[in-house]
């Protein structure tokens, strides 16, 4: 018996060793590979969009390194620990959001940053993870599909931080966080009847929301509706972005050859509008490949969620990956003129730190969910 077991060991030795390695690090290889490919593409396009600035590439590499480190660290945390910390993390996030409103730094006309002396960060980033974690925690504690009362409480858990963030004001992030919470609710099996009632409520409160928007937010929506109205003002971004994308054509102008971006017609081309640079240089074919990569990640994420063994991990995993897709969709939608410009980066590609770290922490959670399965069942 023992011998046989030993035989098994030697037979499966090599494969097992590599499995042991990733298992030991709690990483999901398909997801990891897709993320690495996507961030490599991101670096290439950032190199072009930044006007071949090595300094920017170095900074982005450092952020990527930090983000990967965070991902790996988060992947080590077993999901049940996270489940335990959920209310604390959520409470801390709410407190910090309140602090931002009171003492936050203003950056670009909006109060989003909290200065901790050695380190400035956006508490809303914490909430990107804390809200779905909290809602999943709350719903998993009770049988699903949730009762109306539970749905109501879950909604409160979502709305409070969303309103605090919208007040900063940061429309893009608050929409993302709201949708991440809603995804948890939807995945938990909320009855379609309730979903319809909820939608109707939103529709009726839309006018109320409109009057509470800041002038620049209203301008963005108006610009979205008719960008040519103000070609040198607010509509400029969208017009130039559409020119960049459209002039890319089927095959693109080739890497480093996008005239719109290199001649600085395209604003914010390293951050929110980096997709336009990509489209200009790699064309429709390139976009199909890029979207295929994103779709692969989404499918893998959903697969991980369906394989999860507990309600909490299932709901959390599903919500995280769908939020990732919303990110992607909103960004591409806004630069191609389908959606208003709300100021969201393209995940894993746009230049910028905090949101990438949060994103990778989310992937860390997904990997943790996947790689801690058996241990749980044991």
């Amino acid at each position, binding site marked *: 018996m023992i011998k046989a077991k030993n035989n098994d060991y030697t037979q499966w030795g090599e494969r097992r060793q590599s499995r042991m390695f990733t298992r030991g690090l709690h990483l999901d290889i398909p997801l990891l590979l897709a993320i690495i490919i996507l961030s490599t593409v991101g670096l290439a396009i950032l190199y072009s969009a930044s006007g071949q600035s090595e300094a920017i590439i170095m900074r982005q590499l450092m952020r990527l390194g930090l983000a990967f480190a965070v991902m790996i660290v988060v992947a080590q945390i077993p999901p049940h620990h996270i489940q335990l910390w959920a209310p604390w993390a959520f409470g801390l996030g709410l407190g910090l959001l309140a602090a931002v409103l009171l003492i936050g730094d203003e950056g670009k006309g909006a109060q989003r940053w909290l200065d901790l002396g050695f380190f400035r960060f956006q508490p809303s980033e914490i909430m990107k993870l804390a809200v779905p974690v909290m809602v999943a925690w709350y719903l998993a504690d009770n049988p699903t599909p949730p009762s109306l009362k539970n749905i109501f409480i879950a909604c409160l858990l979502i709305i409070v931080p969303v309103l605090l963030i919208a007040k900063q004001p940061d429309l893009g992030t608050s929409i993302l966080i709201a949708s991440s919470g809603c995804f948890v609710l939807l995945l938990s*099996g909320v009855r379609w009847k309730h979903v319809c009632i909820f939608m109707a409520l939103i529709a009726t409160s839309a006018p109320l929301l409109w009057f509470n928007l800041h002038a620049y937010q209203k301008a963005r929506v108006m610009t979205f509706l008719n960008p040519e109205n103000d070609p040198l003002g607010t509509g400029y971004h969208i017009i130039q972005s559409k020119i960049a994308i*459209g002039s*890319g054509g089927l095959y693109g102008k080739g890497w480093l050859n996008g005239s719109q971006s290199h001649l600085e017609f395209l604003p914010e081309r390293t951050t929110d509008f980096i997709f336009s640079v990509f489209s200009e240089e790699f*064309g429709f074919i390139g976009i199909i490949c890029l979207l295929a990569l994103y*779709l692969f990640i*989404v499918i893998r994420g*959903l697969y991980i969620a369906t394989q999860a063994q507990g309600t909490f991990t299932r709901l959390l995993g599903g919500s995280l990956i769908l939020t990732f897709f919303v990110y992607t969709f909103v960004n591409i939608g806004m630069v191609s003129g389908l959606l208003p410009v709300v100021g969201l980066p393209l995940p894993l590609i746009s230049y910028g730190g905090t949101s990438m770290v949060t994103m990778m922490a989310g992937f860390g959670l997904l990997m943790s969910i996947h790689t801690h399965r058996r241990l749980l069942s044991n």
Partner: protein
Amino acid sequence: MVRQRIKDHIRESRIFNERAAIALAIVIIMIFVILARLVYLQIISHEHFTTLAEDNRVSIVPIPPTRGLIYDRNGTILAQNVPAFSLEIVPERVADMDQTIQALSEIIEISDDHIKRFKKQQRQKSAFRSIPLRTHLNEVEVARFAASRHLFPGVEIEARLVRDYPYSHLTAHVIGYVGRINVNELKKVDASNYSATHHIGKLGIEKFYEDQLHGTVGFKNIETNVMGRTIRTLEQRLPVPGDDLYLTIDIELQQAASKALGDHRGAAIAIDPRNGDVLAMVSQPSYDPNPFVVGIDSKSYRALQNDIDNPLFDRALRGQYPPGSTIKPLVGLAGLENGKASINESVFCPGWFSLKGDDHRYRDWKKEGHGVTSLEKAIVQSCDVYFYDLSLKLGIDAMSDYLAQFGLGQKTNIDLPGELAGILPSSHWKRQKKGLPWYTGETLISGIGQGYNLTTPLQLASATATLASRGLHSQPRIVKAIANSRNNEPQPVPLVQQERHHIASDENWEYTVNTMVRAVHSPRGTARTISHNIPFKIAGKTGTAQVFGIKQDEEYVKEDVAERLRDHALFIAFAPSDKPEIAIAVVVENGGSGGTVAAPVARKIIDQFFLSKSK
């Protein structure tokens, strides 16, 4: 309890998988929405956006051609381009124009006129075109601006070539000047060829030869970034400079003519009768054309306009004067050629002439009369009565027809703009213009160059040249040769047209020329004052044109008449009389007597002409 949990767990898992599947379906649908949008942008509207991207990227900058130079016949430069600094503003790049101009005026002198002119151009030009606010900055101003230029985005100092006329007043009426293009002028030219040009010929040669002088605009396709800063030049087509013109004018002769006229108002023109070359053409007083190039201030312009001497008026081309007695040799020749006069016949001049059955007395300038007068005497002493008689014999229409051959009453078609035609009256002309029949009395006064007769000094000079060349009419011209950038050697301009008169007898012509020689060289000739010290013979004829009508039996006393009502003094001449090389017409406004005022001007021109020829 445990069963319940497990059952729940399976159910929850099933619900979740169901929802995840729906989510995936929605994700795929959304990806297709994105793809549909990108198909629209990148494939269906690809061309549209490519064009927009090119528009963004490439801008075409026109390069102005260098304006052709103008030389006199000996290669002395009369119009050139000199670099000058100007302060220019691109309106598009200035947020608050009034405030910017206000701030600029604190370091550089800017008058209301400059601002007014700038505003006017601003309305006419697109906002991204640079518009000069001030020109001819001096070095101190350039330095002062350079020190604070960071305060003025969109404001630049430009070094431009500015037209300059070194001879100023002397050539103003001939060469004219260039000035800022206005909307109407832009409509008349190929606007794209003028896209970089700020100036256009307004008068004189600058206007007439605008097409040759201007050249062809060049283009630079430059790639710009969003700030409009040039990244690189993609391609360029260099401008073709304008053609250089060589005038028939001899600037030294021009100077001599101007000096000879002195402070008088009037015109003096010298033509080479062999080919119609205008050697000198002076209209006095004149003006400095240089301020007009950069834009003359309204005060100075008003002063010029309101000047009683009318310096802006080109008397040589547009001044219309009764030719007076200068017409007599031509009328005499008309009589001879038509057989209405003969060398041997004489007329008695009692000092007046009257028509049959009319007691109106047509007076001779010499109250006591010239006595028995032949044609020769009539020309030498300028007897009016002889010509009253001769014109009556000729009749107005025969006389008019003959004089028309000398170009009177018609434009000479010189290559200059704005020429007037004068009037050569005939019965047909009067019926057409005035709707009235011709009266015989009008024939008489037409015969001595008064009445309806009006000629420009240029016409007079051209007619004199035709007489001098014994009937060979050359159209006067002012440009002798043109040099373009393809062939640097000036190419002579072919003579436009030379017409030979129908001549009945050469003797009639020689006789007429001879009477004119005697008008200068005989002791009783009206122009005897200029006959001294000359190795060859000058043929000439004085004339006096009435400004102020005097009544019957009233004496014209020069001293009593106010200066501006005095007669115009005229003189025509050519020399040497046997082989003429120069023909001259001089008009001195209110000069009084042709012999004493106008003839010496011609003599000085002739002297200079032969002096420089002998050199």
